[in-house]
């Protein structure tokens, strides 16, 4: 992975190869878990960073659930390398990994990602056909069992925010649900999107504040302050419903309701005017600054066991 070019966008097969290389290079730290298959049969790979122990408290990071948000998969790849490189060198990360595991799912929606490379760069959803409709796919960030079917998601299969027939209908979502439930010891869950520069915590489906709102708010402030220290990228933060809009069936609303207190979702940068086609020269700065915020969240999780 030393020759892997993090400053450009990569195809799904290149990212799969990268994951295998990282595992091969760091057999005592990194392993690959296949938590399921996408609708089209692609593996749902999760990299597990662990220094030992069984069922340690853990941190989850996923990127690319909306396939067209390419800077997220690219950042996820960078994060994976960063974790492997910094263990034993960076004291804060080393302390975390000596007690906790970190799981990274880089390509959370592989069918959609493949489709963005080969057919439609602007594809966001999964690729499962919808019975009775010519429109394909479900928005996997409206498919979770948290206010599912409520306002802020669409019942129209042709909409970009189509929620699906029922909660967890998408294998890409169900696989995470099953994995998180069977693991049972996740303490932080970070789901990464782009763009619009926000760090958000639950809820999206209701205006009822989460019981940990004050702590999540303060931690978000710390995380975005750290993030901005590198390049001055300005983030907004708050609950989803108050900061963006009402959105039902969202990922971190479900994880929070499962008892994972430190549930956050990012919207990474577009400081300019490129949106989802952020130029490749922005990948490393984006990943670097986001890493600082991730470290803030991971460090707080480590230091505040519950």
């Amino acid at each position, binding site marked *: 992975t030393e*020759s892997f*070019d993090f400053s*450009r*966008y990569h195809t799904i097969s290149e990212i799969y190869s990268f994951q295998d290389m990282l595992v091969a290079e760091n057999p005592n730290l990194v392993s690959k878990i296949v938590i399921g298959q996408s609708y089209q049969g692609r593996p749902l790979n999760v990299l597990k960073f662990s220094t030992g122990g069984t069922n340690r408290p853990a941190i989850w990071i996923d990127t690319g659930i909306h396939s067209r948000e390419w800077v997220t998969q690219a950042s996820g790849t960078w994060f994976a390398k960063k974790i492997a490189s910094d263990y034993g060198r960076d004291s804060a990360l080393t302390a975390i990994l000596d007690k906790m595991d970190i799981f990274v799912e880089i390509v959370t929606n592989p069918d959609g990602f493949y489709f963005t490379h*080969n*057919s*439609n*760069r*602007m594809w966001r959803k999964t690729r499962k056909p919808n019975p009775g409709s010519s429109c394909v796919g479900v928005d996997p960030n409206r498919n979770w069992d948290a206010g599912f079917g409520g306002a802020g998601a669409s019942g129209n299969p*042709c909409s*970009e925010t189509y929620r699906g027939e029922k909660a967890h209908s998408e294998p890409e979502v169900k696989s995470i649900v099953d994995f998180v439930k069977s693991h049972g010891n996740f303490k932080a869950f970070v789901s990464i999107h782009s*763009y*619009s520069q926000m760090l958000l915590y639950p809820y999206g489906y209701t205006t009822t504040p989460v019981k940990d709102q004050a702590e999540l708010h303060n931690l978000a402030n710390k995380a975005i302050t750290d993030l901005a220290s590198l390049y001055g990228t300005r983030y*907004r933060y708050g609950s989803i419903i108050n*900061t*963006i*809009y009402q959105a039902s069936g969202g990922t971190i609303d479900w994880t929070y309701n499962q008892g994972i207190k430190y549930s956050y979702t990012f919207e990474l940068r577009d400081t300019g*005017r*490129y*949106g*989802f*086609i952020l*130029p*490749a020269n922005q990948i490393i700065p984006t990943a670097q600054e986001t890493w600082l915020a991730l470290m803030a969240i991971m460090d707080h999780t480590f230091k505040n066991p519950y």
Partner: protein
Amino acid sequence: KETFEGHQVLRITAKDEAQLALIKDMEEMVHLQLDFWRGVTDVATPVDVRVPFHSLQSVKRHLESLELEYLVMIQDLQVMLDEEKLEMESAARVAEPRN
């Protein structure tokens, strides 16, 4: 392969809550096939929307009739996508000898 020739991405800015509501209404105009890259949040945050070529004139007329300010964020989406593809291909060519 779906292409995006002539599609533009518009950045729309609302002056107040009333204008924000007018932009929100556009999300329901299914016939225009708009793709909201960044949806309606608050007055301080612009809305980015991809507009297919066939809807461009209607959308711009609509925005102007409502006195909604906008600028063209991406002039021709396909041009940018082609540039991105070329960049990926050329990076791959450079990487090959190293491998």
